[in-house]
């Protein structure tokens, strides 16, 4: 197994980590799987594409998460809050429909073609890693994911808001009785979750290209990561993201024709062994 192959897995896992953290946060607080998360990621990528020309890659990396954070807030105010007393299945179905609407609107605006996004000039080409040339841009994605993971962990573990998020995820009614403003917290979590999807989309744009099926393509792996990690657990999702990313990429080296089954084998295997997922009911 070469270092390049391992890094490929880590890079893909890193992208999944960023995206799934947002979904896990939203699920943990709201108790609903947001099936429009793939569409939000896609929105982030298209916003990045649109912004790169005027603002450069770094500007796009700031604008995309801001726009998708606003979309997340709109989702909270327009869908989750009005429907919070409906069944989770119903709300999930609504988000599924929303995903289709968002993706269709994106295609109507930007068209069906695959859109190229160049990464930043300073990250073009390869750098030597243990004697192997490896794309600098992929190393940047890994580094970004590591910083985000640490930042999210510290925020959830050490800050007052993080404490409130963890408490509300475990018992929303008790948290509200104890004085936590659950409504404001939900807005914040949706904004952060959306922003993480936006960051993932902006990072993916030079990595995968920007194209109409990118939201659907990433949704299933992200859902599997969240379920395997422990529904609502950010730390579990991060672990599962790396396991899946590395496993799938290395599987492509050794047995590409069966590697497509890996995510499904993983989710079945983990849930049979540990029905609450890797992290169980822990939030971080």
């Amino acid at each position, binding site marked *: 197994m070469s270092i390049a192959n391992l890094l*490929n897995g880590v890079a893909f896992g890193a992208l999944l980590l960023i995206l799934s953290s947002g979904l896990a946060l939203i699920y943990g607080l709201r108790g609903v799987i947001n099936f429009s998360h793939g569409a939000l990621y896609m929105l982030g990528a298209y916003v990045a594409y649109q912004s790169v020309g005027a603002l450069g890659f770094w500007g796009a990396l700031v604008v995309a998460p801001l726009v998708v954070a606003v979309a997340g807030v709109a989702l909270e105010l327009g869908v989750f809050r009005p429907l919070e007393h409906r069944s989770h299945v119903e709300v999930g179905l609504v988000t599924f429909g929303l995903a289709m609407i968002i993706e269709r609107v994106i295609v109507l605006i930007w068209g069906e*073609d695959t859109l190229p996004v160049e990464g930043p000039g300073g990250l073009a080409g390869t750098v030597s890693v243990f004697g192997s040339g490896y794309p600098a841009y992929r190393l940047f994605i890994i580094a970004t994911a590591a910083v985000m993971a640490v930042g999210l962990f510290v925020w959830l573990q050490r800050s007052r808001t993080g404490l409130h998020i963890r408490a509300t995820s475990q018992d929303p009614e008790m948290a509200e009785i104890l004085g936590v403003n659950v409504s404001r917290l939900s807005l914040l979590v949706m904004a952060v979750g959306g922003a993480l999807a936006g960051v993932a989309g902006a990072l993916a744009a030079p990595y995968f290209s920007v194209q109409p099926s990118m939201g659907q393509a990433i949704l299933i792996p992200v859902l599997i990561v969240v379920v395997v990690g422990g529904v609502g657990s950010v730390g579990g999702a991060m672990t599962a993201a790396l396991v899946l990313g590395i496993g799938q990429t290395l599987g*492509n080296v050794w047995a590409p024709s069966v590697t497509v089954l890996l995510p499904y084998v993983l989710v079945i295997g983990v849930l049979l062994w540990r029905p609450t997922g890797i992290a169980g009911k822990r939030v971080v």
Partner: protein
Amino acid sequence: MNRFTRDGSSPRRVRRCIALLAVTAMATLAACGGAGGSGSGSGDEPIKIALIPPSGGVFAIYGRDTIKAWEFAADEVNAAGGVDGRKVEITAVETDGTPAATVRAARRAVTQDGARFIGGIITSPEVAALQPQLPSMNALLLNSSAVDDPLTGEQCNANAFRFVQNTRMAIGGVASSLKDLPAKKWAIMAVDYSAGRTSAKAFTKAVEASGGEVVMTQFAPQPTADFGSFITKLQGSGADGLYVHENGVDAQAFVNQGTQFNLFDSFKSIVSFKVINEPLFETFGQKVDGFNADLGYAHQLDNPENAAFVKAWKDEFGSDPYHVEADNYLTAQALFKAVEDAGSVEPKDVAATMEKLSMDSIVGPIEMRGADHQLQRSSYFAGVKFADGQLGWDDITEIPASQTTPTADPACKL
């Protein structure tokens, strides 16, 4: 008590009702005319064509351009009074590109919309699923995209005709140029479905015939978002030549990511199959400079039909046509000729004239080979060159069908 008289109605009245219902049903069936219509097709009956392209996924862009080309051809011929006075009517039904959905859509188009001709299907698996159903639908399939050899081999069908070069023809075009390329040890990167596996096998044979060797073959599922692990294997293969067969979005992802890995710098020769076409020139830019590519069609082809087509197309759309658009326009022209020769839109009549089709076209003189329903047309091989800020074809070589496929596939039994 007799069961017919449970509610007190007389048996005679009930029998009359049943007879009336039976007559009404038979009359309705006769009016519908059964699947795909029957009879010889009256002189003013329109030519109804159902296009079934994918609405999304890897081939969405080809689907859109397929519809564009057919509508262009239909508008052109309708403006001139139709084919023998018959109007051409196009219905486009988009699907998710899966074989099951395509077959369902085709059946619906034939039974409900009265289509007699089906086109616009992009992939070989879809065509393979539909072909056996065609006789029961009483419809003809006009294949302008799916290249897998068995479609005019062991899977051939009397109701299906292929107008695009099959894999063997296209690789034949590549094979004739292999001896001129510096690479001798080849790695193959192909899409993991029927056409990809066929082209990999054909390319391997061509390499071995030219005195080279294939040192690695790998297949990536469709779609593949991250080609990283495949690229890493290619870098470690020891090959000095690379053959790539990927489609649409996957092709673009492979080229982008290969560039990030500096993959292409490590090969003396790169041959791409179905990867590069004119609409993607701007997307690819310098990344594919120096590649060699199969070319189904080039707008520069020098014949009067092509000159007229390219001019009309450019006047309408502001750009030169590329192979998807040209192949579908060519298919439409062939259909119109066959209908005109048949004097009918009845599929069996049109099939009979289509089998003997011979005409001058935008790709030069073409002939339908009756033994396997594969159109005989040239293949092309060209270099890709980035000059003056844009990508273009360089040094286009034409390889005639007599060289790429001198005989029909013996596995085809029509």
